[in-house]
């Protein structure tokens, strides 16, 4: 027959520490570390004796307590005689205990709320049962074949309409195309091609630019001659090697 002792079970080392501080009625900011750590270790050994399984956290806290105790025993005065204001080694632990106590108190408040709330009963709704009573409306309930056909027709029309819209690719004229075009036009007009006429009928700005660039290019290569007979007058374009054109141009002017 095993003799059983009831000892309070603690949630963790913090809980046990709080209990010891309460029991000894000590100031949390001035913990008698020697007293508390010896009582703490006493609890641990008692727990071990009665086969109470303790988690490793309890041992970790025991180490912390002993380490604080050791640091407090060390002389604060350095050999040189210099006064060193060291932090109280207990401070970190105190902060942790305070924070833990805060939440432990709130947990107590929660316990009360839980109890109060357990006395209130709200209706439990059996949603599955309700769904059976109120079957969801069939979204296709009122639809006849004719509606389906009409809808299909609508879709088809929409597709047709969409086909009418076509994208027109922008016409692209390369410089070489334009040069060829001008050379051809010059061949057609040996008597001189009007600069003004070359540009009439052009609708795209890019084409105007390319045309002008083509003229510049032809001129740079020395393939054409440009002549303006009077100030602000029309410029005439000739093939350079087309002597006849030049002659006739001279005669015209």
């Amino acid at each position, binding site marked *: 027959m095993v003799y059983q002792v009831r000892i309070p079970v603690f*949630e*963790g*080392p*913090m809980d046990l520490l709080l209990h010891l501080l309460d029991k000894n009625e000590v100031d949390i900011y001035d913990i008698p570390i020697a007293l508390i750590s010896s009582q703490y270790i006493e609890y641990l050994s008692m727990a071990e004796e009665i086969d109470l399984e303790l*988690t490793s*956290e309890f041992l970790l*806290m025991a180490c912390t307590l002993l380490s604080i105790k050791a640091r407090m025993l060390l002389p604060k005065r350095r050999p040189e005689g210099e006064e060193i204001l060291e932090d109280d080694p207990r*401070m*970190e632990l105190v*902060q*942790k205990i*305070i*924070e*833990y106590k*805060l*939440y*432990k108190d*709130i*947990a*107590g*408040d*929660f*316990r009360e*709320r*839980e*109890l*109060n*709330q*357990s*006395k*209130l*009963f*709200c*209706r*439990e*709704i059996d*949603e599955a049962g*309700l769904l059976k009573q109120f079957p969801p409306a069939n979204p296709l309930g009122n639809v006849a074949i004719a509606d389906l056909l009409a809808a299909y027709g609508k879709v088809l029309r929409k597709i047709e309409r969409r086909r009418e819209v076509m994208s027109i690719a922008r016409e692209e004229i390369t410089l070489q195309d334009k040069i060829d075009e001008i050379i051809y036009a010059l061949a057609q007009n040996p008597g001189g091609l009007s600069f003004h006429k070359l540009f009439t009928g052009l609708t795209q700005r890019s084409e105007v630019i390319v045309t002008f660039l083509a003229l510049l290019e032809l001129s740079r290569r020395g393939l054409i001659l440009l002549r303006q007979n009077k100030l602000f007058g029309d410029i005439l374009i000739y093939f350079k090697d087309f002597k006849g054109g030049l002659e006739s141009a001279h005669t015209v002017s």
Partner: protein
Amino acid sequence: MPTLFPKDFKSVIEALLFVSGEPLSAQQISGILDVDEQDVVVLLKEIKADCERENRGFFLLEIAGGFIFSTRAEHAEYIEKLIKPRLNTLSQAALETLAIISYHQPVTRSEIEEIRGVKCDSSLNTIMERGLIDEAGRKEAPGRPILYKTTSEFLKYMGLKSLDDLPKIKKDELQEAVNES
């Protein structure tokens, strides 16, 4: 208190509250009735007052951002004879874990354990299973640990209107403790 609405609206709201298993917000009701939310609030107050005046067996409970009919606490002993009692209450460990989450959310498991000084796996599991907390993404920290937050079920369980309704703690004390640690 006379209102500008047909008396029917109050009756409709009562009906909605009666069939709803979840707290109904004034906004939801105003959406259903197509009535201004402020007016719904007035009508809800009237319904609440009616229940009190007539000392009905139920009252209008404001909880988790909405309203729901609830029986009076003093009738609990009789009700418990009629229907099976609630689930077991939470353990001290679960309550402490819940307390830390509710004030620190979103919070990781290791942050909770830092405060409690013990492992929290099982209490986290318990309150998760009861639907009182939920995951809230992951923290951008080494290991990308899971973050936890409380749910509206938590508000209902604790009888809170919203998180602002949580018991006020000595904020300075907590802040100090948090800063120092």
